[in-house]
């Protein structure tokens, strides 16, 4: 299966913030997971070496080591001795559950905010339906223009 880890190094787009209270390595882990879940990183893609990602993000290399170790422990990355770090085969079936996990986080955030603003669950559902209808309308209009 050597061909799977094809040394196809993919530039990863990661943005860090020191203001949002999430540890830096966590932010990297979350964003790599997202890149995998959304298909921007594929099975067999090589991640940047520790030094270059550290230089890209201007962070201490140990933060990258910790992020890669975490993703490795979760089964999303695999290390090939002497060659690099790759998206693992296991990441593929994980993708659906990863997508669900990301959407679940968004849903939780939405529900928490709704509660803070005193919206009932029924009102939230109603709002979601309205938005879906509005988006469908925009979508079909765009299609007509194409």
């Amino acid at each position, binding site marked *: 299966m050597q061909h799977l880890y094809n040394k196809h190094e993919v530039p990863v787009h990661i943005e860090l913030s020191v203001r949002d209270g999430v540890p830096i390595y966590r932010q990297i882990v979350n964003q790599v997971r997202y890149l995998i879940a959304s298909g921007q990183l594929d099975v067999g893609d090589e991640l940047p070496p520790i030094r270059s990602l550290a230089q890209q993000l201007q962070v201490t*290399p140990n933060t990258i080591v910790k992020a890669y170790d975490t993703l490795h422990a979760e089964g999303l990355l695999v290390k090939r001795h002497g060659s690099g770090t790759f998206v693992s085969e296991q990441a593929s079936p994980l993708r659906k559950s990863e997508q669900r996990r990301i959407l679940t986080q968004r849903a939780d955030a939405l529900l928490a905010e709704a509660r803070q603003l005193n919206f009932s669950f029924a009102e939230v559902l109603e709002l979601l339906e309205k938005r879906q209808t509005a988006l469908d309308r925009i979508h079909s209009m765009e299609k007509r223009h194409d």
Partner: protein
Amino acid sequence: MTERVVQVEHLSRQFGKTTALNDVSLTLEPGLVYGLVGANGAGKTTLIKHLMGLLRAKHGSVKVFGVDPVREPVNVLSRIGYLSEQRDLPEWMQIDEMLEYLSAFYPAWDRAYVAELLETFALDASKKVKQLSKGMRAQAGLIAAVAHHPELLLLDEPSTGLDAVVRKDILNAVIRAVADNGRTVLFSSHLLDEVELMSDHVFMINQGKLVLEGSLEDIREQHQVLSVRFDSCNQSLPKIDGILAAERHGKQWHVVCNGNQAHVRQTLADVGGQVEHLRTASLQEIFVARVGRARQSEEG
């Protein structure tokens, strides 16, 4: 157990009536980046000078690579790279002459690395040091500091007064030393965002005393910022253990606290304060809460 790169024990230093260092103890382990933060005059440079053997420990002890840097300067200095804000370089020398001169002192001097860095920085090595801009001076100083792949890199306010491009050059050299060779770095800076991204471990020093130290993650986890709302604008905040700083915005208070969070929240609730928001503090907020206040009391 890993060998300690630096071990400082109960180090105190007095300059006339000024206390520069007050009972400082710390250790540096290999392969980590240490950030040293503190206001001007807090004692950062004095500490670094002790590590280089430029100052002798009068009270307490300093060990670098297991030995006293004052007693064994050659042994220690050959394994250290140093870059200071002043970047005291020989003004009358050309860059290439200076680097050639320095290479004689360091058996591990890496000419290929020097050539690579000169090219990366687009530095004209035939220029005299006194003709260099501030940024070029920092780049030349940086090459001189890292060319022998030092086991310990000491950077004293390396970013001060430099533009983003040269700051990045410096940080990239730090990253390379740590990532490729597992070196140890101690850098002092007042750019707290930079320290927050670049350090594994932080020392916060104030008026010569080590007021806070730990891994960046632990430090941040131990400090929270609470938004507290009171019904009345006149509500003053009670004195609560664990609150480091508080700032009022109308009915809302921003509170930086550490330690027993449950206790802080309970005490706030007892006086009618409603905690609306809670998040981990940034290093900037922690610094202002811990050091900013001390400075005010000193001035006031």
